[in-house]
């Protein structure tokens, strides 16, 4: 069994580049200013693990954590 993943956006670091939303629209939401937070509690549904890592490695502010539980 693969580990369960969670994504988390650090709101103090996020500057609203919206790369995460473009690459993994299922995992992130944007507020009215275009700043991101994780969708729901951040749990990554099976099959979307690749997108979670991709979002993390494209965030220019290094604001995204992918946590393995």
């Amino acid at each position, binding site marked *: 069994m693969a580990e369960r993943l969670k994504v988390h956006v650090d709101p103090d670091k996020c*500057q*609203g*580049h*919206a790369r995460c*939303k*473009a690459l993994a629209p299922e995992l992130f939401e*944007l507020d*009215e*200013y*275009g700043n991101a937070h994780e969708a729901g509690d951040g749990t990554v549904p099976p099959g979307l693990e690749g997108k979670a890592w*991709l979002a993390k*490695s*494209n*965030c*220019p*502010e*290094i604001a995204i954590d992918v946590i393995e539980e």
Partner: protein
Amino acid sequence: MSDVSQPAAHPPVTDWVNDFDHTDPQWTDDPFPIWEELRAASPVVHTERFLGCYMPTTYEAVREIANDTEHFSSRRIIVRDVRPEVARNAAPPITSDPPVHKPAKQLLLPPFTPDAMKKLEPRMRAICNELIDGFITDGKVDAAARYSKYIPVQAIAHMLGIPESDSDLFINWIHMILELGIKDENKLLQAVQEMSDYFRAQIEERRSKPTDDLISYLMNAKDKEGQPLEESHVLGSLRLLLIAGIDTTWSAIGSSLWHLARTPADRERLIAEPGLIPIAVEELLRAYSPVTMAREVVKETTISGCPVKAGNMVLLSFPAANRDPKMFPDADKVVIDRRENRHAAFGLGIHRCVGSNLARMEMQVALEEWLKRIPDFRLDPAGTVTWSQGTVRGPRQLPFLLGKAM
């Protein structure tokens, strides 16, 4: 006091590491080998030109400066020959430092979210196609002068609610501010004045007849005390939106087309796999980042181990950071399907470009519409490609032959 009489001619550079000049023709034509030389010498280099100026050459040094608003101020954002007094509300929030920066920026963010940009997309596609209609049967075109230049100017005019037919006027102001203004204070002041008068007249019109564009939006905006913005703030932000929205994306679209004209394999791949265009746009943004911002050192500190002294300017080169091989494998190559791409083309930290979602949308649409209708094109050997000087880098003449080579 600044000397506004004569623009100084700059002596040619012979020692790039200790005496660099980003307005030198060699830099304008091909900066990439120069950045490599500077980066090999030090993470932060210095020149006596421009009254003293540093340039971070690595991604890490650029990041450190971008995130350090204590030692580096944004009140001056262009490296120039002079340091005149800074006007209050010059172009908020790009010229603002904390704590006034955040509220000024938050005001501008909602109209530029990805969702807001989706609504603009159909108008953008129409603009691109109208432009292509104008030259597609000619067999050749200057793609900078007749295509990439007009896409962003019409987009921002549309958003601001000012006539798209005034585009040439706006483009001329921007040329005076961002290029001629580096060495000629008068040109800069004249353009700023004309631009402010133009917007003042627009504001006046809206007082009796409100509209649902960005000008009315700013006129109706409230600051954090619930008060309307001062007129100087509204004007400053309007100037910023016009200046920042045009040259930059014009350059990014132009550089992308320049790359595709010279790289048939990438062109064919994007035509076969249009779904790759958004990823390719990120790589083109990394490799040909148009915008270099500036900061002013206001307190002595060290960056990547290098001491920097107050009073000097900093050429905050996001383009050079994006070519740092420590950060990007094969940094000097365009890898059109590069998946891991933490590039800094839109800046880092609190001054992240407000218009980044707009710019991305414009680039994607401009390339999609062009490739759909003009799959084959190449540089015209009879013409010359020229590049802009200074703060924003992009092709200003881009002569193409359209159609398959005979």
